[in-house]
């Protein structure tokens, strides 16, 4: 993926000198194998401001710093990371990324060693070893599913029990991780090898993470990166589309701070919740707005505003937490408790990020009950013509504003999407990465909520209702 110097094409020439490096929480990361400072030109006009590099040259680092781009050295298990970490900081990099499962205590030792250097240490571990609820400004993993619609061998989309295609997503996992605290969440998975990755798939990878409040560490396949470096017109067009989606979410970073508008709370042992394809993703596929609550973080505040709760793993709750759910039920909430003895993954294995067949079979029992309980009820919002999409329904000001984020995982724009939100709203605005900011007609739905119709959704779109 090395880039040829002469081939680099500048997209925008105006680059601010000595720009300020953003704090880690504002870093928009990408993996970058170009060590030539000219390669940074391609980042102009994008919100990417943090590069993960495996090798670096002084001119590259200084040029990046001058552009306000943080550089982080990627360190892998195998050798003691102390020396390369020290060397990276001395070379002017802003920190290191420890990618992989290092021996316990290694990251703390590197942090201690770099104390006083104003260096940032980011851990990209397996999902099983993520330091959740800790003080780090960034938590991350190198693992993830490549988002998109599952396709059968014959080219047809895989049909889920609902009859809709199944969408591989990391959103359930991200929701669970974000329930542990305010740290930025980074996903460092790579594009699938030996595959042609289209622009739409890259945009879906970005939007899948961003919709749930995380950031995908942009990683381009070798072919794409090479074509980009040569100024290939099609590659540049794809890159601009990706940048547009990134910019869309970064321009609305306030959405990350909003709470779920979902009236359904899913209380789940955190190890189960870190697997993709589980109950959270199944509920998301039905576009039922929900809030993920790790059993360990169950509090009355977490349940506030919810009307239904699914207690996936009752045995893992403390007596006090069980009492909370009883009080929730006494106050009129509906609680669905998994059958006694039901338990998903007992111990999350480092290499595992999805449920296996046996676990999926077991999950089907509780899934059937969840479907029966939720039915066609509006638990925050109901969405129509969204089978190739996933959504996130968020709120600010105790329900006075609702934001509905939509991500399209298909290669085609979807026309005529309907959104029916619980509550009365007078104004609705459609916001898209393409720059659309359009007022939508609002109407009263049959059930007394607020409805809006969206003409077209390309990669993603958001409706904001006030």
């Amino acid at each position: 993926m090395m880039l040829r110097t002469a081939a680099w094409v500048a997209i925008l020439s105006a680059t601010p000198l000595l720009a300020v490096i953003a704090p880690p929480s504002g870093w928009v990361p990408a993996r970058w194998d170009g060590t030539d400072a000219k390669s940074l030109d391609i980042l102009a006009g994008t919100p990417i401001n943090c590069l993960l590099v495996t090798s670096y040259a002084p001119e590259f680092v200084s040029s990046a710093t001058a552009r306000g781009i943080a550089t982080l050295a990627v360190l892998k298990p195998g050798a003691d990371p102390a020396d390369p970490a020290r060397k990276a900081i001395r070379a002017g990099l802003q920190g290191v990324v420890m990618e992989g499962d290092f021996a316990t205590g290694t990251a703390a030792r590197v942090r201690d060693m770099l104390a006083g250097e104003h260096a940032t240490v980011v851990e990209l571990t397996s999902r099983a070893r993520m330091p959740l609820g800790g003080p780090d400004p960034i938590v991350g993993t190198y693992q993830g599913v490549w988002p998109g619609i599952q396709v059968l061998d014959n080219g047809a989309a895989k049909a889920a029990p609902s009859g809709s295609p199944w969408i591989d997503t990391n959103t359930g996992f991200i929701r669970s991780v974000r329930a542990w605290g305010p740290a930025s969440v980074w996903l460092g998975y790579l594009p699938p090898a030996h595959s042609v990755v289209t622009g739409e798939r890259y945009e879906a990878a970005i939007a899948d993470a961003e919709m749930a409040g995380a950031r995908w560490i942009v990683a381009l396949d070798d072919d794409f990166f090479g074509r980009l470096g040569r100024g290939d017109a099609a590659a540049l067009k794809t890159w601009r589309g990706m940048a547009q989606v990134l910019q869309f979410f970064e321009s609305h970073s306030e959405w990350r701070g909003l709470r779920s508008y979902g009236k359904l709370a899913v209380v789940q042992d955190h190890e189960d919740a870190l697997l993709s394809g589980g109950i959270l993703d199944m509920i998301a596929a039905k576009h039922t707005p929900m809030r993920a609550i790790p059993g360990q973080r169950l509090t009355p505040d977490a349940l506030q505003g919810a009307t239904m709760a699914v207690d996936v793993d009752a045995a893992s709750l403390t007596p006090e937490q069980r009492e909370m759910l009883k009080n929730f039920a006494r106050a009129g909430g509906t609680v669905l408790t998994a059958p006694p003895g039901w338990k998903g993954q007992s111990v999350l294995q480092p290499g595992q990020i999805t449920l296996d067949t046996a676990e999926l079979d077991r999950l089907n029992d509780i899934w059937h009950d969840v479907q029966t309980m939720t039915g066609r009820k509006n638990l925050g919002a109901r969405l129509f013509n969204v089978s190739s999409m996933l959504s996130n329904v968020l709120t600010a000001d105790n329900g006075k504003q609702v934001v509905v984020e939509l991500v399209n995982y298909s290669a085609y724009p979807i026309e005529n999407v309907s959104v029916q939100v619980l509550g009365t709203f007078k104004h609705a605005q459609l916001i898209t990465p393409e720059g659309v900011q359009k007022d939508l007609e609002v109407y009263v739905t049959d059930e007394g909520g607020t409805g809006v119709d969206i003409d077209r959704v390309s990669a993603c779109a958001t409706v904001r209702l006030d």
Partner: protein
Amino acid sequence: MIKAAPGPEGTPAAAPVALAKCTSYDEDVTARLAAMFGQLGGLDRIVRGKTVTIKLNMTGSPGLRVDGRPPGVTHYVHPKLVGATAHLMGQAGARRIRFVESAWATSGPLEEYLLDSGWNVRQLLAAAPGVEFENTNALGKGKQYARFKVPGGGYLFPAYDLNHSYEDTDVFVSMAKLKNHATCGVTLSMKNCFGMLPASIYGDDAGVDAPNENPTSGRLATMHEGRRQPSKSAPAELDPSSSREPEYRVPHIVADLVKSRPIDLQIIDGIESIAGGEGPWIKGIRRVQPGVLLAGLNPVSTDAVAAAVMGYDPRAARGTAPFRTCENTLLLAERHGVGSADLRKIDVRGVPIAGAMFRYES
């Protein structure tokens, strides 16, 4: 030109069929349809002051798409055609226009199924006075199922229990897509009526004794393959030892249905469609743009012309395209006395078949 086999002497009467070219849904579909209804003698005389029930062709889950395209341009009838039909029927004085379909694997409101298909329900409601919707996959808004006996006895069942909408109507319309069907060769106005069967009774999770009012399955095991019987509340199969082959059963059931619930008006959407099967779950399908519309007053005659437009002999025997592996529903319906599939007897109005032909197979 199609080499269509002549029908035997004494076949039932034929009815005129209107055939028109229409290359895009962006054309004035309403004007095209109005002209076609005029060629059939006018819509007024059929619908004025009447309750009209229109069975839509919306097979399979709206979530399953062909190349991600809206289902209206692939395997569902297109909502613009539906809206145009409602508008014209309203203009012609229809008192009530009820759109029906047995929505796949659900008994929820049909409006939600339409929304999930990307249709604008509010526009449809505004297209004419008295527009309403009913999901006929279960009891719906009715209090009991309507029993439709097959006059003269059925091929597979003596009678079928259907949603009340098929009985509580003055005019019954089948609005279908011009496409192939893996089990029946072609999906046209008659095969569309297989979807009248409520999954509550004929579905794979139908109740054994009584209907299951919350069905979540299709009808594969019960009706296609005969691996189980419908709910006992409905008339039982005439001969449970008969063939269990779907390619035998489904055409016979369709012929029974159109005999027991006559179709007064047929509208077939061939503007854009698919060839090679009825939906995205069929391997090898492809999108096509035949650019045609058909309307008729006898389902066998209308389907015969439609099959000819697709490049097939509507009287082809089993073993010949499009009925390579299945019985010919058109001939079964003809044998039931529903109408004639004999092209020589059918008065095609508007564009001649040769001028509208779009071969579904080369």
